[in-house]
């Protein structure tokens, strides 16, 4: 069996293609890593190795000048508040849609579905004045308000999960006299945790990567988020590649680590969402 596999040219071709793809994926980050550790007098050739990988001077400078800590803490606050709200709203909507039959259920699902095909940047033309009249322009509430709402991907994943929870569980709780709110809070919500974990990870990555919303609604220096911090820093330090590479690394490492440890949930979420979408 094994020998047959190795002789098979198609098998070789598979590894060659995978090898090429891996090189293409790794090439840009590899160059970034090399150059993030280079001092000002070192070779500017992108492939030259740095004198030492222990030279963290660039990172120190970037932490000082690019408001990295401020950016991380603002981003963290926005993610935490948005996600708590988003998970609560998403589970509530899904519970109501899955367990209570009422007129207009399909309409509501349809509204959430249609909302997902509207490219978000197009509506910012109007949302911009809305955010201003709500008085949240240049506050962390602007992105939070825009991220906190339930969305169709989340609702479909939750609905799938709730349909797999036997209704007998609800019924026996009702015989014990539990209120519907209690059934939601102490039976349904905990049983949804696997889906919640997946959604929290995916949404964390999405918000962390979001560019235009923080750019548009929080121009104030103190309200810098991860994506806007690197934009501001890079436009002030054109062609200072070693600094920019250090910033890129600092910003990329958290999500890549998150991904490496939690890949199982991420793949589950991507596949699930796509098949349903």
């Amino acid at each position, binding site marked *: 069996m094994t020998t047959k596999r190795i002789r098979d040219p198609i098998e070789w071709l598979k590894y060659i293609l995978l090898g090429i793809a891996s090189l293409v994926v790794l090439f840009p980050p590899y160059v970034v890593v090399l150059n993030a550790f280079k001092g000002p007098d070192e070779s500017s050739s992108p492939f030259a190795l740095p004198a030492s990988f222990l030279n963290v001077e660039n990172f120190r400078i970037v932490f000082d000048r690019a408001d990295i800590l401020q950016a991380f803490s603002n981003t963290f606050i926005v993610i935490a508040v948005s996600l708590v709200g988003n998970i609560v709203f998403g589970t509530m909507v899904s519970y109501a849609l899955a367990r209570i039959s009422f007129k207009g259920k399909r309409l509501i699902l349809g509204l959430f579905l249609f909302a997902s095909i509207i490219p978000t940047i197009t*509506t910012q033309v109007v949302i911009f004045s809305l955010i201003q009249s709500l008085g949240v322009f240049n506050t962390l509430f602007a992105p939070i308000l825009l991220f906190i709402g339930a969305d169709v991907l989340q609702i479909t994943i939750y609905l799938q999960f709730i349909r797999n929870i036997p209704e007998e569980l609800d019924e026996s709780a009702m015989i014990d006299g539990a209120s*519907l709110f209690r059934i939601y809070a102490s039976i349904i919500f905990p049983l949804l945790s696997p889906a919640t974990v997946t959604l929290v990870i995916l949404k964390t990555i999405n918000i962390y*990567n979001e560019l235009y919303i923080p750019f548009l609604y929080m121009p104030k220096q103190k309200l810098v988020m991860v994506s806007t911090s690197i934009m501001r820093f890079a436009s002030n330090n054109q062609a200072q590649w070693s600094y920019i590479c250090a910033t890129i690394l600092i910003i990329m490492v958290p999500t890549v680590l998150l991904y490496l440890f939690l890949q199982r949930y991420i793949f589950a979420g991507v596949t699930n969402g796509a098949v349903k979408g």
Partner: protein
Amino acid sequence: MGTSYARQRTMILITFLFIPLVLLGLFTYYPAVRLLYLSFTSWDGISDTVQFLGLDNYKEIFTNPDLFGVFLHQIPYVLGGILQNIIAILFAVILNSKIKGRNLFRVLLFVPYIMNGVAVAFMFQYVFDTENGSLNALLGMLGLQSLQHSWLGDTSLVNFSLASVSFWRYMGYTMIIYLGALQSIPGDMYEAATIDGANRFQSLWHLTLPNLTQVIQLNMFLTLSGALAVFDLPFVLTKGGPVGSSETFLLKTTETAFTFNNYGLASAMSIVLLIFTIVILVVQNMAIKRKGDA
């Protein structure tokens, strides 16, 4: 015994749906409706009064090549997206076979999707830089000086360079979606095909691809609507330059609104983009339905 369950159901419906629906209305449907209304006006974003223009904004969009013509810049993204789907299917099929290091390759190819988009953009600015960029350096090392270019500075190349970044970033994502679909094809179908004497390519063509039709349609929708709405990459990397050659329709839209304060025209542009997205969706759904009937 507390309140009756019938009453509770009504309470739950109202309380559980109220805030999410308000948010949906406020940040999606109200803006969409207002966008439609503004698209017939010349609103400048500040004044209280608006002048009604009828269809003038739409006429402007379709007759002014500076506006509608930028869609031409987005053709490389469409081509890149189609290529991305083909390559993604190829790698999904490879990774769906018994192969050593499967999980490692899967994790590796997906990693670009996880990375911060702005960081990816700057990473590629370094790749594409004419003087110090790693791509030109690599070509130089390989003795291919003739292929060295100003990747982001050449008006005929810039959109292809940007589209290739998008390819780099999303290929793994598309692949994972295909891989998920492949894994749901029951293995015994392949066994049956092998028993019937089908070779690898026959089972790929007659078994795998037909089973992927729906996912291919979905991914093509994502690809095409994504190509219509290209924004982040040119916004960060080129600001639409050089000389406007990497402007996209959405970039133009936000400029029209936020730089030139022509909210009426920008709203009409948004509506046009939305209509195009819906058209793609409807056409694809019709294609799926037709297949289903046949």
